[in-house]
Protein backbone atom coordinates (compact mmCIF):
# COMPACT_ATOMS: atom_id res chain seq x y z
CA UNK A 1 0.00 0.00 0.00
CA UNK A 2 0.90 3.65 -0.19
CA UNK A 3 1.27 4.18 3.53
CA UNK A 4 1.76 2.45 6.86
CA UNK A 5 -1.41 0.65 7.89
CA UNK A 6 -2.25 -0.15 11.51
CA UNK A 7 -5.11 -2.23 12.82
CA UNK A 8 -7.32 -2.13 14.69
CA UNK A 9 -7.77 1.61 14.86
CA UNK A 10 -9.39 1.32 18.28
CA UNK A 11 -9.20 -1.47 20.81
CA UNK A 12 -10.94 -1.74 24.15
CA UNK A 13 -9.61 -4.48 26.39
CA UNK A 14 -10.63 -5.62 29.82
CA UNK A 15 -7.85 -5.59 32.36
CA UNK A 16 -5.98 -8.86 32.19
CA UNK A 17 -6.85 -9.53 28.56
CA UNK A 18 -4.17 -10.12 25.91
CA UNK A 19 -4.13 -7.88 22.82
CA UNK A 20 -2.33 -7.93 19.47
CA UNK A 21 -1.74 -4.80 17.43
CA UNK A 22 -0.78 -5.06 13.78
CA UNK A 23 1.45 -2.87 11.63
CA UNK A 24 1.68 -3.20 7.86
CA UNK A 25 4.67 -1.11 6.75
CA UNK A 26 5.43 0.30 3.33
CA UNK A 27 6.66 -2.48 1.09
CA UNK A 28 10.45 -2.64 0.97
CA UNK A 29 11.01 -0.57 4.09
CA UNK A 30 13.81 -2.18 6.05
CA UNK A 31 13.31 -0.44 9.38
CA UNK A 32 10.22 -0.62 11.56
CA UNK A 33 9.63 1.16 14.85
CA UNK A 34 6.96 0.95 17.52
CA UNK A 35 6.18 3.93 19.76
CA UNK A 36 3.80 4.36 22.69
CA UNK A 37 2.03 7.71 23.08
CA UNK A 38 0.26 8.31 26.37
CA UNK A 39 -2.47 10.93 26.50
CA UNK A 40 -1.02 14.44 26.27
CA UNK A 41 2.53 13.18 25.78
CA UNK A 42 4.95 12.73 22.95
CA UNK A 43 5.59 9.28 21.49
CA UNK A 44 8.11 7.15 23.32
CA UNK A 45 10.25 4.52 21.66
CA UNK A 46 9.38 0.90 22.32
CA UNK A 47 11.28 -1.28 19.88
CA UNK A 48 13.04 -1.37 16.52
CA UNK A 49 13.36 -3.97 13.75
CA UNK A 50 15.73 -4.12 10.84
CA UNK A 51 14.07 -6.59 8.51
CA UNK A 52 13.13 -9.52 10.78
CA UNK A 53 15.79 -8.82 13.40
CA UNK A 54 14.73 -7.01 16.55
CA UNK A 55 17.81 -4.86 17.14
CA UNK A 56 16.55 -2.79 20.04
CA UNK A 57 13.81 -3.55 22.54
CA UNK A 58 15.08 -1.28 25.29
CA UNK A 59 11.86 0.75 25.37
CA UNK A 60 9.49 -2.11 26.10
CA UNK A 61 8.12 -1.26 29.56
CA UNK A 62 7.80 -4.81 30.89
CA UNK A 63 8.01 -8.44 29.87
CA UNK A 64 4.29 -8.32 29.16
CA UNK A 65 5.17 -6.52 25.92
CA UNK A 66 6.39 -8.55 22.99
CA UNK A 67 6.94 -7.61 19.35
CA UNK A 68 7.74 -9.66 16.29
CA UNK A 69 8.30 -9.25 12.57
CA UNK A 70 8.89 -12.82 11.42
CA UNK A 71 9.16 -12.27 7.66
CA UNK A 72 10.56 -8.76 7.71
CA UNK A 73 7.32 -7.09 6.68
CA UNK A 74 4.20 -7.12 8.91
CA UNK A 75 4.86 -6.60 12.60
CA UNK A 76 2.72 -7.44 15.62
CA UNK A 77 2.96 -5.85 19.04
CA UNK A 78 1.47 -8.10 21.70
CA UNK A 79 0.59 -7.04 25.20
CA UNK A 80 -0.22 -9.75 27.70
CA UNK A 81 -2.38 -9.31 30.79
CA UNK A 82 -3.17 -5.70 29.94
CA UNK A 83 -3.23 -3.12 32.74
CA UNK A 84 -4.76 0.34 32.88
CA UNK A 85 -1.38 2.02 32.45
CA UNK A 86 -1.09 0.35 29.05
CA UNK A 87 -3.85 2.64 27.75
CA UNK A 88 -2.23 4.73 25.02
CA UNK A 89 -1.91 5.18 21.29
CA UNK A 90 0.55 2.75 19.74
CA UNK A 91 2.24 4.17 16.66
CA UNK A 92 4.18 2.25 14.07
CA UNK A 93 6.66 3.85 11.66
CA UNK A 94 8.64 2.39 8.81
CA UNK A 95 11.70 3.72 7.06
CA UNK A 96 13.82 2.75 4.06
CA UNK A 97 17.06 4.06 5.57
CA UNK A 98 16.45 7.68 6.41
CA UNK A 99 13.08 9.27 6.94
CA UNK A 100 10.00 7.82 8.58
CA UNK A 101 6.41 7.23 7.57
CA UNK A 102 4.01 6.84 10.46
CA UNK A 103 0.73 4.99 10.62
CA UNK A 104 -2.36 6.42 12.27
CA UNK A 105 -1.89 4.29 15.34
CA UNK A 106 -4.04 2.04 17.47
CA UNK A 107 -5.75 3.63 20.45
CA UNK A 108 -5.81 1.04 23.23
CA UNK A 109 -8.12 1.59 26.16
CA UNK A 110 -7.89 -0.83 29.07
CA UNK A 111 -10.98 -0.86 31.29
Amino acid at each position, binding site marked *: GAGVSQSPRYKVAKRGQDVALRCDPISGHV*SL*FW*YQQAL*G*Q*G*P*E*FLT*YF*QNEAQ*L*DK*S*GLPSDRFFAERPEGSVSTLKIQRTQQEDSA*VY*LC*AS*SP*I*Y*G*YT*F*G*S*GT*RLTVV
Partner: protein
Amino acid sequence: AQTVTQSQPEMSVQEAETVTLSCTYDTSESDYYLFWYKQPPSRQMILVIRQEAYKQQNATENRFSVNFQKAAKSFSLKISDSQLGDAAMYFCAYRSLRNTGTASKLTFGTGTRLQVTL
Protein backbone atom coordinates in the same frame (compact mmCIF):
# COMPACT_ATOMS: atom_id res chain seq x y z
CA ALA B 1 20.76 10.13 26.57
CA GLN B 2 19.18 12.83 24.51
CA THR B 3 16.23 14.86 25.76
CA VAL B 4 13.87 17.20 23.95
CA THR B 5 11.91 19.92 25.75
CA GLN B 6 8.91 21.86 24.51
CA SER B 7 7.94 24.42 27.14
CA GLN B 8 4.75 25.67 25.50
CA PRO B 9 1.86 23.24 26.06
CA GLU B 10 -0.50 25.43 24.04
CA MET B 11 -0.20 28.31 21.61
CA SER B 12 -2.80 30.33 19.76
CA VAL B 13 -2.48 32.35 16.56
CA GLN B 14 -4.89 34.28 14.40
CA GLU B 15 -5.36 33.23 10.84
CA ALA B 16 -2.79 34.85 8.51
CA GLU B 17 -0.52 35.76 11.42
CA THR B 18 2.87 34.30 12.36
CA VAL B 19 3.60 32.04 15.33
CA THR B 20 6.80 30.55 16.71
CA LEU B 21 6.96 27.26 18.59
CA SER B 22 9.95 26.65 20.84
CA CYS B 23 12.08 23.55 21.31
CA THR B 24 15.31 22.93 23.17
CA TYR B 25 17.28 19.73 23.33
CA ASP B 26 20.22 18.22 25.12
CA THR B 27 22.85 16.02 23.51
CA SER B 28 26.56 15.34 23.66
CA GLU B 29 26.68 14.49 19.97
CA SER B 30 27.81 16.92 17.29
CA ASP B 31 25.96 15.41 14.35
CA TYR B 32 22.23 14.76 14.40
CA TYR B 33 18.89 15.54 12.79
CA LEU B 34 16.10 17.64 14.20
CA PHE B 35 12.51 17.43 13.07
CA TRP B 36 9.17 19.09 13.52
CA TYR B 37 6.17 16.81 13.17
CA LYS B 38 2.50 17.74 13.01
CA GLN B 39 -0.10 15.42 14.53
CA PRO B 40 -3.72 16.21 13.62
CA PRO B 41 -6.66 14.42 15.27
CA SER B 42 -6.18 11.58 12.77
CA ARG B 43 -3.09 10.75 14.90
CA GLN B 44 -0.73 10.25 11.97
CA MET B 45 2.60 12.01 12.44
CA ILE B 46 3.31 14.22 9.43
CA LEU B 47 6.80 15.56 8.80
CA VAL B 48 6.81 19.36 8.62
CA ILE B 49 10.49 20.14 8.33
CA ARG B 50 13.91 18.61 8.93
CA GLN B 51 17.25 20.15 9.84
CA GLU B 52 20.68 18.53 9.67
CA ALA B 53 22.90 19.80 12.48
CA TYR B 54 25.94 20.09 10.21
CA LYS B 55 24.13 22.58 7.99
CA GLN B 56 24.37 26.17 9.14
CA GLN B 57 21.53 27.30 6.89
CA ASN B 58 18.11 27.15 8.48
CA ALA B 59 15.65 24.83 6.74
CA THR B 60 12.58 26.27 5.02
CA GLU B 61 9.51 24.57 3.59
CA ASN B 62 7.00 27.00 2.13
CA ARG B 63 5.34 28.75 5.11
CA PHE B 64 7.41 26.81 7.64
CA SER B 65 10.93 27.74 8.68
CA VAL B 66 13.21 26.99 11.59
CA ASN B 67 15.64 28.98 13.69
CA PHE B 68 18.40 26.50 14.52
CA GLN B 69 20.87 27.67 17.15
CA LYS B 70 23.31 24.81 17.60
CA ALA B 71 25.36 26.33 20.41
CA ALA B 72 22.23 27.13 22.38
CA LYS B 73 20.66 23.76 21.45
CA SER B 74 17.52 25.54 20.32
CA PHE B 75 15.29 24.64 17.38
CA SER B 76 12.18 26.79 16.98
CA LEU B 77 9.53 26.50 14.27
CA LYS B 78 8.03 29.57 12.65
CA ILE B 79 4.73 29.28 10.85
CA SER B 80 3.92 32.22 8.61
CA ASP B 81 0.50 33.14 7.22
CA SER B 82 -1.18 30.65 9.57
CA GLN B 83 -4.10 28.71 8.18
CA LEU B 84 -6.96 26.89 9.90
CA GLY B 85 -5.49 23.62 8.68
CA ASP B 86 -2.34 24.26 10.70
CA ALA B 87 -4.23 23.58 13.93
CA ALA B 88 -2.73 20.42 15.44
CA MET B 89 -0.21 19.10 17.95
CA TYR B 90 3.36 19.89 16.97
CA PHE B 91 6.24 17.73 18.15
CA CYS B 92 9.93 18.47 18.05
CA ALA B 93 12.10 15.37 17.63
CA TYR B 94 15.79 14.43 17.67
CA ARG B 95 17.62 11.68 15.84
CA SER B 96 21.27 10.77 16.03
CA LEU B 97 23.14 10.85 12.74
CA ARG B 98 24.79 7.54 13.54
CA ASN B 99 23.02 4.96 11.38
CA THR B 100 22.90 2.15 13.88
CA GLY B 101 19.82 0.42 15.20
CA THR B 102 19.48 2.28 18.45
CA ALA B 103 20.62 5.60 17.09
CA SER B 104 17.99 5.76 14.35
CA LYS B 105 15.06 6.07 16.76
CA LEU B 106 13.37 9.41 17.30
CA THR B 107 13.24 11.15 20.68
CA PHE B 108 10.20 13.41 20.94
CA GLY B 109 9.25 16.38 23.08
CA THR B 110 5.91 16.57 24.85
CA GLY B 111 4.28 18.65 22.14
CA THR B 112 2.63 22.03 21.66
CA ARG B 113 -1.04 22.28 20.80
CA LEU B 114 -1.55 25.02 18.21
CA GLN B 115 -4.94 26.67 17.89
CA VAL B 116 -5.71 28.85 14.89
CA THR B 117 -8.50 31.38 15.31
CA LEU B 118 -10.41 33.46 12.80
